Structure formats: structure tokens, C-alpha cells
């Protein structure tokens, strides 16, 4: 068993959670004028998949992009500065939350559904052409598979046997629309299956199983077996956009949200980590405080950072 890997995944998840809880606690201050889509409850997917990647691999994400940014080691100061619209942000205040990216860490985000799926395939095409041992990973939600560009991209990737891993974070809702009104009941990973594609489904809140699954898939994708598709069953705890709970809004029940809270991926991995003696409860609490403190420090630092100069508005426009 790879103790270091599980410890890293756990710490990454904890870091994502503590960072996003900071957003929750300060969002009403109106310093972050950017619609945010929180990953709270879905941290295991980005953390486990990214643990199995190499630094040079490329990651493409949808609007719910904070987790992948942090899992790839994106700068925390630049994260908060970007959300606060400051020039020290990862995109110098231009992109905000929904496009949160780290070019340095090869993480690229776009909130248009499915927009990054073909881009990941194109990245994989270039790796294939240049015979590089890199892979592309694209994270997207369950609704993105409804977009035409998903089918087109999947077809191309399978046809060309490209090194790309499609990761579908199935959290059961597109905004407030349940999966059941958008897709037939058959599981996504089965519905899209063709013989040339490795297609799996896993519990997206079980980081251990997730890591075991991607540790099987990723080396095969990397060595040229063609693309793989992984459906991760998970759940968004907070509202679609914004920091609040929304179970009083009628589209999902409090019981449903609470049942998924009981399946909290961090809690589950924590039990495993302490059970295996990888970390003690005290060490975990210390880390929790540390990440929380770092989030607070980065937020405060962002608020003291300069705004972009008005005369730079037209920068990077042809």
C-alpha cells in the first residue's frame, strides 16, 4: 500500500476544503465579486486523480475548478487574489473563479459546458504526435456529456487512440436540474461505452478506490492503449453557484444532502488514514488549522494587493 499517496491525497482534500470554507465564511463581505462554484463534497475526485499524474501532464476543467487548481499545486495567494480581482491573481484579475487556471501548473478552466473536452483531446493529439509520455485529463460534470462536443471529442480520441483521461464528476444535478430529467437511467459509463474505450465507474467519494482505479487506468492511457473514461459518483453539498446551502429550495431534499454529508470523502479517508496509522487525529487537526490559517492569510494578503491598473484593460487583446 502506498501510504505517501493516501497521505498526500488526504492533505490535498483537506486543503481544498479549508480553502473553500474560507470562501464560504467571507463571501458575503463582497470582496470576491465573482460567481463561485464550490467543490465542497467533491474533493476526492481532483485530489485522487491528480495524485496519479506527473507534473508535466495537462489538466482541463469546467466551472467547478477550484479543486483541480489546488490539487495540482496552484498558488494559494494567486487563488485568493484572483477571486478578489487583484493584479496578483493567477490571471491578473481577468478570469475570476469560473476560469481559475494555473498556466504554470498546466491547469486550464472554462465554465462553458463541455468547452474543455475537445481541448484536452487536442492536447493529447499533440503529445501523441510528438511522442511525449504525457497525458491530458479533463474534468467535467454529468451535464457536459449531453453536449454534442462530448460525443465528437470521444469519437476522435478513440479513433486516434489518444492519451486522454475523461473524468466525469457525476454530482446528480446540472444547476438545479436532476440527472433523471436530462438523461436515461442507464449509467453514463455504460451508455458511452465502445469496445475501444476503457470505461469505468467508481465511488467518487471514496478516495482510496478512486486512487486505485486511476492508478490502473492512467498508466494504460500513458503507454498508448488509448483514452479512458471514468465516471465518479459524487455530490455537491453547497448551492450550484454561491456559498450557501439550498435544500430549502425544493429541488432536492435536506435528507438527500445530509445523506451525502454522511458520505463526506474527507471523513471517510480520515478514518482510513487514522485506522492505518498513517496520521494521528492530532496531526490531522494540526493540518486542518494550518490550511485554514493559510487560507485566511492568503485572503488577507489578497485584500492588501493592488488592483489592476485601468490602462491595462486592453492587454493581451490582438
Amino acid at each position, binding site marked *: 500500500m502506498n501510504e505517501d499517496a493516501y497521505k498526500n491525497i488526504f492533505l490535498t482534500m483537506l486543503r481544498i476544503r479549508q480553502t473553500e470554507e474560507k470562501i464560504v465564511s467571507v463571501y458575503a463581505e*463582497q470582496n*470576491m*465579486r*465573482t*460567481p*463561485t462554484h464550490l467543490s465542497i463534497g467533491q474533493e476526492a475526485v481532483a485530489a485522487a486523480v491528480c495524485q496519479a499524474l506527473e507534473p508535466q501532464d495537462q489538466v482541463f476543467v469546467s466551472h467547478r475548478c477550484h479543486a483541480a487548481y489546488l490539487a495540482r499545486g496552484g498558488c494559494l495567494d494567486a487563488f485568493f487574489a*484572483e477571486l478578489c*480581482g*487583484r*493584479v496578483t*491573481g493567477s490571471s491578473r*484579475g*481577468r*478570469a*475570476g*473563479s*469560473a*476560469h481559475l487556471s494555473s498556466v504554470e501548473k498546466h491547469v486550464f478552466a*472554462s*465554465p*462553458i*459546458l*463541455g468547452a474543455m473536452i475537445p481541448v484536452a483531446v487536442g492536447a493529447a493529439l499533440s503529445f501523441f504526435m510528438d511522442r511525449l509520455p504525457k497525458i491530458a485529463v479533463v474534468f467535467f460534470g454529468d*451535464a*457536459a456529456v*449531453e*453536449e*454534442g*462536443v462530448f460525443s465528437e471529442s470521444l469519437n476522435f480520441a478513440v479513433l486516434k487512440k489518444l492519451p486522454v483521461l475523461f473524468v466525469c464528476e457525476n454530482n446528480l444535478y*446540472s*444547476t*438545479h*436540474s436532476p440527472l433523471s*430529467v*436530462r*438523461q436515461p437511467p442507464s449509467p453514463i459509463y455504460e451508455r458511452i461505452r465502445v469496445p475501444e474505450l476503457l470505461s469505468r465507474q467508481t465511488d467518487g467519494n471514496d478516495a482510496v478506490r478512486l486512487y486505485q482505479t486511476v492508478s490502473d487506468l492512467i498508466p494504460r492511457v500513458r503507454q498508448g492503449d488509448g483514452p479512458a473514461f471514468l465516471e465518479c459518483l459524487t455530490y455537491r453539498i453547497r448551492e450550484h*453557484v*454561491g456559498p450557501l446551502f439550498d435544500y430549502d*429550495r*425544493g*429541488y432536492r431534499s435536506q435528507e438527500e444532502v445530509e445523506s451525502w454529508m454522511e458520505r463526506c470523502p474527507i471523513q471517510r479517508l480520515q478514518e482510513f488514514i487514522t485506522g492505518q496509522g498513517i496520521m494521528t487525529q492530532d496531526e490531522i487537526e494540526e493540518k486542518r488549522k494550518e490550511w485554514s490559517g493559510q487560507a485566511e492569510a492568503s485572503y488577507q494578503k489578497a485584500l492588501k494587493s493592488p*488592483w*489592476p*491598473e*485601468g490602462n*491595462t*484593460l*486592453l*492587454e493581451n*487583446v490582438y
Partner: protein
Amino acid sequence: MRTLSYKDAISEALVQAMDNDPDIFIFGLGVDDYKGIFGTTREAYRRFGPERVFDTPASEGALMGITLGAAVNGKRPVMVHARNDFMFLALDQLLNNAAKWKYVYAGKTSVPCLVRGIVGKGWGQGVTHSQNIQAVCAHVPGLHVAVPSSPYLAKGLILQALQTDGPVVILESRALYDTVGPVSEEMYTFDFGKAHVCRRGKDVTVVATSLMVPEALKAAGILEAHGIDLEIIDPVSLQPMDERTIIESVKKTGHLICVDNDWLRCGFSAEVAAVVADQAFGSLKKPVKRIGWAFSPCPVSKTLEDRFYPSCQNIIETVLHLLDRDVPYNKECALTTDTFLGPY
């Protein structure tokens, strides 16, 4: 007259039209959820239920084609996009199929349908949630394209759209959703191809679209105190376009400022300038001026976003420049008040 908000005027128009015509149905992501497209489809869902107001997969391209297939068979679909940026995904069907339908089948068949898209603004909507697709739609022959600036126009245009023989694109402004104005309880229509003269004046013609109409009216109010009399024209529909009303106004004032809720390059403001240059060149005392978004994607950062969007103050300064005037006015009053507190 009774007053109504922009969003309630849209809602009322949809409900009245659906009451009258059982073939109308509304679909799109989230049309039946608790937010109901910012309140515009809630009442229709409550009244007509899930058979006529229903949620869809996130499949904009296919859904536009599905709209056409239903429309050609006697249905009158209303396709809704909570942000019109997602209409870019539907452009193949909209431009290659919908816009060509009547023409290519020699007028023997048509696709009566309405596509509603909402243009976002402010609070960091960012590069892909604040664009305006109007110029793309108005560029291609075969569509009606309208951009209501008031509750009155929003209701009249939607009711007109739902009686029109052919595809209609109505682009609403999220920033106008809570604005209130007089709206008749009766069903009424506002014709495509007819401009709305919002204010009569003699000194400068200001052609303003969508949420720039209130800004232009505010500018007119401030300048009135200094003896400057603006004529404000809302073109209302970009295609077909009411050239005559604009031309006649410019012939009277000799000045044109076009204020658009869009980028200027290859946009509707350029079209207005070209029409005036072509048909009223001799009346112009000064060059045509255009006001619109800075030519960059819309940034999230507040300092940049504030600079990206024009305001009433830009209109005032441009008027004063054209008239070679310099008047003391309260610049604070001329700033756009931003009451939207997010997130979407």
C-alpha cells in the same frame, strides 16, 4: 397605467400568449426550477405545468434543431438560454437552418419560434457570461432580432414574437430585470422594425440600445438643465431595422451618437453609422460618435470591469464634445448605479 418589472412583464407576456395559443411551449435548462430563469418562467410553469414548460439536457445545438423540427410541424417553441453566451453552441442550427428555412423552401414552410437569451452584466460575470450575441444574429438574413430596453417593450416584443411567422431572437439584459415601468394588462404587440422614440429633442440624436437607453435618458435629464436637448431613439429591433426614424432624426439634429450594449467593431453601432453616412451624410455637422464596450473580453476585476462598460457620463462627455460645450454637471450623478450583488 399599472407598473411592472421587466422580468414580470416577460412572464406576463409568456403566460398570456400561452393562454391564447396551446401550441406554445417553453423549454431550456432550468426553466422549471425554483428560480425559473430569474422569475420569467415560474408563472408559466405554475399555470401550464411540465407538459408545456420543461427542463432539458444541456444540449444547446441539438435543442435548437429540435425547436425547428417542432416549429415546422405547427408547434411554437420558446427556447431559453439563461446566458446568451450559450447560444454560441446553437449557432449552427440557428444560422444554417433556422435563418434559411423559409427562403430555401421558397416560402412554402416556415419555423415560427422564439429564442430568448439573457445578456449578463457586472459582479464579475467574466469573459464568457457577459457577451452579447446580437451582432452575429443580426448579420445573417432570415432572423428577427430584438433587444428590449423596458418592461413595456419586453412584453410587446414577446407577444409579437409569438405571432410572427419565422424565427425570432430576443436578447434581454440581466441588468434591466428589476427595472420597473408602465405596462398595460392587455395583450399588445410591438412591431419588429419599428424604433421607439424615447425622448424628443433638437440638438443631438442619441441612438441607444437595451440597457444603454436608461443611461441615455439619464444623460438627457442632466443636460436638459444646461439647455441641451437630446433626442433618444431606441431601435428596439436590430433586424429588421427602422432606418427612417434614425435618418429623420439626424436630419433634424445634425448629430449622431450611437450607444450600444456591445463591442463596437463590426457591431450594430457601425451599422447605424453606415446607414446615416449613406442616407444623411449632408445633414451631419460633425463626425458620428460611437460608445460601447472596451475592445477586450469582459474582465472580472472591478476596477477593470468599471472601465469596460460605458456609462451616462460617457454620453454626456460625447454630447459636450460634439456641441463644443463645457458645462458644470454633477459627475457623481452620471455614474451608473450598480445594485447587483451577485452572484449570477
